[in-house]
């Protein structure tokens, strides 16, 4: 396994810029997720790292070796494609063995490694099947085995779970993460699914418009987003545009005054108030400073979601579904409730993207 560094990597397509001077490093054995909406440049970045796309400028390094001008077939990365990209005319075992064959391994050694790899993904019994005879989940595991068996310098995952159904996706997520940690794979994961990124990654890179918005651990990005875009993209968030008063309070565009902890919110460019729905608690009645009327109560099983109108603002609140005897259980639309949160829970962040590149 190698480490990966990208220096000022840029890709232009005619007039438009897909990736703009991207700097990024992935330590050996680390899983870094590139997260962003479609068109943010994450896939383009991955394709430049794999060698499918020549960068306009900038460098790609595996360890300290500059591979920028190396063709894809000499880079020794193991990639899992969104469509799996299995070879339709080869059996699962032949698919897995292809990379070994390209490395000139003798048939006997190849077969041993194919068996090991298929065992790793629990498909030993299906090696003789053609891809079309396998389920989506099984095809995905063949693709994993095929990428891993060559002992790649870098493990690249391009939206690997997007073609699986929700239940399977959650399982495979854990499975891939366990495999990655056990084998110490230096991994770059491209995804637009925040849950996938949060659960799998050591570090997260939120991208937008070809640029990095923020890099950090999942917890950092979730709890301390640098701007409203990151706050919103990494998880659900109440984002209320407005401005900071000299008193230290925050005044929303609709005139609602909200208390904030100035110690954790030094940002001068604070044009939005960001607060996660689960960080707000609800009390029946109007005893608190901030209160309003319930607009909707949505039962989600383990959790319940409340929409509360305070002045002209709507707050989304997510609480664990209360037990039948708890006062909250009786809350219904039109009821008056108070909202409370820890002083350090809200973040004041820039609302727009004009802050530009982050470090």
């Amino acid at each position, binding site marked *: 396994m190698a480490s990966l560094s990208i220096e000022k990597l840029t890709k232009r397509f005619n007039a438009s810029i897909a990736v703009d001077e991207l700097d990024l490093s992935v330590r050996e054995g680390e899983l870094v997720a590139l997260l962003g909406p479609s068109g943010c440049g994450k896939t383009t970045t991955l394709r430049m790292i*794999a*060698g*499918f796309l020549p960068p306009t400028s900038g460098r790609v390094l595996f360890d300290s070796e500059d591979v920028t001008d190396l*063709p*894809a*077939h*000499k*880079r*020794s*990365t*193991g*990639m899992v*494609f*969104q*469509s799996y*990209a*299995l*070879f*339709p*005319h080869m059996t699962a075992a032949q698919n897995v063995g*292809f*990379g070994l064959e*390209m*490395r000139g391994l003798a048939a006997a050694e190849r077969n041993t490694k194919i068996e090991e790899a298929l065992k790793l993904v629990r498909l030993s019994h299906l090696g003789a099947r053609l891809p079309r005879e396998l389920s989506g989940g099984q095809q995905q595991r063949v693709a994993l085995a*095929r*990428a891993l068996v*060559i002992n790649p310098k870098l493990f690249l995952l391009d939206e690997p779970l997007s073609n699986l159904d929700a239940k399977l996706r959650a399982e495979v997520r854990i499975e891939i993460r366990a495999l990655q940690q056990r084998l110490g794979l230096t991994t770059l994961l491209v995804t637009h699914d925040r849950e996938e990124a949060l659960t799998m990654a050591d570090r997260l890179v939120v991208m937008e418009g070809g640029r990095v918005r923020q890099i950090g651990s999942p917890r950092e990005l979730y709890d301390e987003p640098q701007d409203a875009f990151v706050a919103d993209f990494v998880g659900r968030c109440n984002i209320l545009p407005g401005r900071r008063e000299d008193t230290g309070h925050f005044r929303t565009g609709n005139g609602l005054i909200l208390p904030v902890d100035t110690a954790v919110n030094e940002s001068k460019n604070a044009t939005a108030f960001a607060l996660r729905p689960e960080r707000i608690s609800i009390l029946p009645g109007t005893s608190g400073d901030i209160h309003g009327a319930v607009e909707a109560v949505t039962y989600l099983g383990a959790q319940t979601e409340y929409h509360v109108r305070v002045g002209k603002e709507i707050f989304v609140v997510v609480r664990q579904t209360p037990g039948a005897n708890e006062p909250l259980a009786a809350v219904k639309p039109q009821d008056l409730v108070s909202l409370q949160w820890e002083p350090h829970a809200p973040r004041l962040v820039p609302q727009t993207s004009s802050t530009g590149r982050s470090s």
Partner: protein
Amino acid sequence: MFVAGRPSLGRGLMRTSVAIAYLIIFAPVIMIVVTSFFAQQIVSFPPTALTLHWYGNAWGKPEFLRGLITSLQVALLAAGIGVPIGTAAALAIVRSQFPGRNAISTLLLAPLAVPGVVAGAGLYMFYVLAEDVLDRDIKATTQGLVAAHVLLTIPWTVRLVVASLQGLDRAAEEAAANLGAGPLTVFRRITLPMMRPGIVAAAMFSFIQSFENLDLSLLLVGPGRITLPVAMLNYLEFRIDPTLAAVATLQILIVGILMVVTDRFVKLSRVV
């Protein structure tokens, strides 16, 4: 959209019209096969008796057997030459970018739009001129005929192979490169096998196009090198009897067997 559980008039109408369409398509084929067994010389219903006489009669006429052999030879050669050329052209059209790509794509399909007799006449005149320049026989030679039939096979090949290339998952090629395969290996081990259904179908249609062709060949055949369709037309000039139906039945049989065999290797309904 059908509403579930409702016995629908729509579905009945649909089935009836499908049945009628099939009947219209197959009626000539069925008529030819049936009449090839009729005993009387001038076809009329009902048959006075059933016989294999006309098959014997066809077998006894050397022009048909020679025609069959010539047709098979020409069709095999034309497909054998046209399919690789058409495949190469399809690859260039889909995979590379050069000025005039669309124009070439249109040009390669153009022979489909020219009536065969016109193309045949044009080729005949071209051959006459070329003979003067090259000082060798071209018209009425097998080479000349095969060259003409290659023109029939290229549009079909280009169309079918372009379609199969466009439907091909390029990620599979990238995956192969990712696993260490150089461009040539990727083409040989991944691209070509994935194109196989399109190429096989193209070969089959090319063969049939050439094997059945009458109009383009008319002016280009020479003595001793008459193709089967031309031999049948020649026979028809002097006589009308079910011998032709017998020959046509054999022709239908050959094409039918070819399609069934091809379909076992490549599901034609998925390619065409």
